């Protein structure tokens, strides 16, 4: 039986000016069908594989190499990945949406199969045999019955071009025969990283390179009054104090000189109100005009709710979150006349090169963008902006320039995960069944990736103009619909024009916030119905994979059926909560169970254990998937328990690790993972799905422990105490 979202694709349908699904956004570029764009056999037999995607710290470089090695029948160590270089790799848009495996992985799998087949045809001709007499092992094609007759890939193709198209028609290897895919192959980048060998963008040094730091206005609305160049006269090594519009950078010979000069440079700004008042944030969001999109509309909601035996209504709140990459953004640019080389840790080398071309008023062909790894970014941090800072300053001095943001630059200027409001109405019949479900989310676009110069901070500071109005809003719809087969349901996204603070992609886009609301509300209904939270969810799930992922997690913790909350009034109480989601409603499936301890007096929540059951179809690298799940769980727990990006009307007040604390080692719970491998199902991404369920599982566990419902992130001791006292008042 199909679930509501699968039998009607209405919410994924095209809407005017707005892409219908996450699949399209990240796969923006037309994918090349030229075999030579993907695979090259070098003279020494090395296989070079080209991917337009980039390594954002997830280990995907290794997973892609596994796919190539498997399909081409070569040893893994013979595959060299080249990623994200506009002069060498295909355009695959952005590395985003957990789509590198399904996108680039599929393209490379097909290209590798095509290359293997092409070489088999060549070998058959050369050896005078038919195709089915041949077999391939480790890049050597042999006549099966006369193994002394063989030819290597290097003999056939070394250094030559295939000049073929990827037809997607040649036979692929059967997953049952896999020897490399499915293994926990160690990451190829880690030996370098544990040894301190250079490799990050921060480590790059090009000949003649100068250093720069930026002097930013106190907020995006402030305007420059004056710069006193004389104030840094005593600092040696100053090459240039560059100012245009509200953009200021200092370029020096040595890095510490740039740091000193940026601190010391006297600049006067005319201050202005730039941010909403924190206390009015959610009202300000909701008071905007909206553009509404009804994603699910099944049955007559009004009538069903009016006839329900019991009616419920809850509102959930999500603050701004910072990506808070552990290393601030950095880039190196070399602008020589009209030729530009940029090294950047951008997730979108091709789109960014377009924005930089516009910024410099040059043809995009003149921009050579080379990706280098940065610190983990989880979406869009300052990587694109700092690349723009570097090209402007390199152009100004005519030499290569390295720019590194400060910790404070990163906190203030990186785009945030947007604040959102979610509201749900529900009705139960006399037996406690859901007879009506009405979901609303108010959210700005989660995606404002830089395709235009004006979308970069640099562009805005240079021109004095705010970011151009986005043509589409995207991301708030992610996981707004559930996979539950409620008989009557409606899901509405109220798209907001203004995010109030600069916002762009953060792991899962709206998926985490929507799942927090959906999975909290179904828990509220289960409790009202007096039914066990796990059992209640299973009532509305028919698909075997959905049921299995929940049942697997439950089995792992030895789930004991009981209606929440537990009736325990002691000062230190424990509880267990569950949450389920299928990412984007048709991708990986996740069930998360959290076990918490709540100190009623202090309001402190200690998460002791989190268990995740995870089904992302065929698993390419089990340890790589586990690593992603652990990371998703710990990062999303940090966001749920601690993180709230703060500001007043003129200043950001979350500017360092003390004012924006994240989870520490002492606060990290045990995380246990059960992987469900499905070799017969497509491999889907694991970079985000396990991020969406954590907050709800913890909120549900807090409810189970205390009977208090917490509906606003983060779950700080103050909020827990408030929820506990509210509960006593009732």
């Amino acid at each position, binding site marked *: 039986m199909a679930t509501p979202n699968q039998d009607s694709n209405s919410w994924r349908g095209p809407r005017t000016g707005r892409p219908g699904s996450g699949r399209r956004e990240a796969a923006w570029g037309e994918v090349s069908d030229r075999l030579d764009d993907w695979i090259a056999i070098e003279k020494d037999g090395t296989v070079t594989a080209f991917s337009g995607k980039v390594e954002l710290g997830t*280990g995907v470089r290794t997973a892609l190499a596994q796919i190539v090695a498997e399909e081409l029948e070569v040893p893994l160590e013979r595959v060299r990945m080249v990623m994200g270089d506009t002069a060498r790799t295909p355009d695959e848009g952005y590395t985003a949406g957990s789509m590198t495996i399904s996108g680039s992985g599929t393209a490379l799998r097909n290209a590798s199969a095509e290359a293997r087949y092409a070489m088999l045809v060549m070998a058959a001709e050369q050896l005078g045999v038919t195709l089915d007499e041949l077999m391939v092992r480790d890049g050597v094609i042999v006549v099966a019955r006369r193994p002394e007759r063989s030819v290597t890939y290097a003999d056939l193709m070394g250094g030559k071009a295939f000049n073929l198209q990827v037809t997607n028609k040649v036979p692929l290897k059967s997953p049952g025969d896999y020897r490399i895919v499915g293994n926990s192959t160690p990451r190829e980048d880690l030996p370098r990283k544990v040894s301190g060998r250079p490799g990050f963008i921060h480590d790059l040094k090009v000949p003649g390179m100068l250093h720069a730091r930026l002097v930013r206005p106190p907020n995006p609305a402030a305007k420059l009054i004056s710069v006193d160049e004389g104030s840094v006269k005593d600092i040696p090594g100053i090459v240039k104090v560059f100012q245009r519009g509200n953009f200021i950078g200092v370029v020096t010979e040595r890095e510490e000189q740039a740091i000193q000069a940026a601190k010391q440079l006297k600049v006067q700004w005319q201050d202005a109100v730039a941010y909403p008042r924190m206390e009015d944030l959610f009202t300000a969001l909701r008071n905007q005009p909206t553009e509404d999109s009804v994603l699910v509309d099944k049955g007559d909601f009004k009538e069903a709710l009016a006839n329900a035996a019991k009616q419920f209504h809850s509102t959930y709140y999500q603050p701004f979150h910072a990506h808070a990459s*552990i290393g601030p953004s950095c880039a190196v640019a070399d602008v020589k006349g009209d030729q530009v080389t940029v090294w950047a840790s951008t997730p979108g080398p091709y789109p960014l090169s377009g924005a930089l071309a516009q910024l410099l008023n040059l043809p995009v062909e003149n921009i050579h963008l080379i990706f280098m790894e940065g610190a983990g970014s989880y979406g869009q941090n300052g990587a694109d902006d700092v690349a723009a800072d570097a090209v402007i300053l390199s152009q100004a001095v005519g030499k290569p320039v390295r720019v590194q943001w400060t910790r404070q630059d990163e906190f203030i200027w990186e785009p945030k995960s947007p604040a959102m409001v979610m509201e749900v109405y529900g009705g139960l019949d006399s037996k406690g069944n859901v007879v009506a479900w009405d979901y609303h989310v108010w959210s700005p676009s989660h995606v404002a990736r830089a395709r235009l110069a004006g979308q970069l901070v640099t562009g805005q500071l240079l021109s004095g103009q705010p970011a151009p109005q986005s043509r589409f809003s995207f991301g708030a719809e992610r996981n707004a619909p559930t996979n539950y087969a409620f008989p009557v349901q409606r899901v509405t996204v109220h798209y907001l024009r203004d995010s109030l603070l600069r916002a762009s992609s953060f792991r899962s886009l709206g998926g985490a916030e929507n799942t927090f609301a959906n999975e909290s509300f179904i828990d509220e209904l289960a409790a009202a119905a007096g039914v066990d939270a796990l059992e209640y969810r299973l009532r509305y799930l028919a698909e075997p994979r959905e049921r299995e992922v929940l049942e697997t997690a439950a089995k792992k913790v030895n789930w004991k059926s009981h209606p929440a909350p537990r009736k325990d009034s002691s000062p230190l109480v424990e509880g267990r909560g569950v949450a389920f989601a299928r990412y984007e409603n048709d991708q990986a499936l996740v069930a998360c169970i959290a076990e918490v301890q709540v100190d009623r007096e202090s309001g402190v929540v200690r998460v002791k254990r989190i268990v995740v059951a995870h089904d992302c179809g065929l698993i390419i690298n089990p340890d790589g998937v586990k690593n992603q799940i652990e990371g998703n769980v710990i990062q999303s727990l940090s966001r749920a328990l601690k993180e709230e990006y703060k500001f007043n009307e003129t200043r950001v007040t979350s500017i360092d690790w003390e004012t924006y604390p994240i989870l520490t080692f002492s606060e990290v719970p045990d995380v246990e993972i059960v992987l469900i491998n499905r070799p017969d199902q497509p491999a889907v991404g694991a970079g985000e799905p396990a991020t969406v369920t954590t907050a709800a599982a913890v909120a549900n566990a807090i409810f189970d422990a205390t009977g208090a419902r917490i509906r606003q992130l983060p779950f700080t001791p103050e909020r827990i105490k408030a929820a506990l006292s509210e509960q006593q008042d009732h």
Partner: protein
Amino acid sequence: MSDEIVLIVNGKLHTVQAAPDTPLLYVLRNELRLMGPHFGCGEEKCGACMVMVGAKAIQSCKLPVSEVGKSRITTLEGLIEEGELHPVQRAFLDEQAAQCGYCLNGMIITTAALLWKTPHPSDKQIREALDGNLCRCGSHLRIMRAVKRAEVLLSEEAG
């Protein structure tokens, strides 16, 4: 303003030109091209820039190079002996204890210092030792497993 400063880094004497108040981190990275220690916050709050001074793990992002004196500095690169990874580095590889790996330097340096001082730490001691090292990717559990493995490798080596 630039002084000639002598440093002992990874067992070798180095003479560098730097203003005395230059933080050690920039001298290590830009003058000695040792890219193990990373810039994270510049405020001694995250641990990405850690090095060992003697047997102690310290942050190098604010420490003026002129204050280092004759202390022996060991960076991540310096843990490698005759091409052999240090047991702590091996343990981090064995456990695949990283995602982006930007914080790895501080994690490994802190672990090496912890196990030097406390060869058999409790779970609580491990967590407390690492509390000053931030990881944004969520590799904490793997890192703690790597510390436990390093403990075993080191005691095997000590025989």
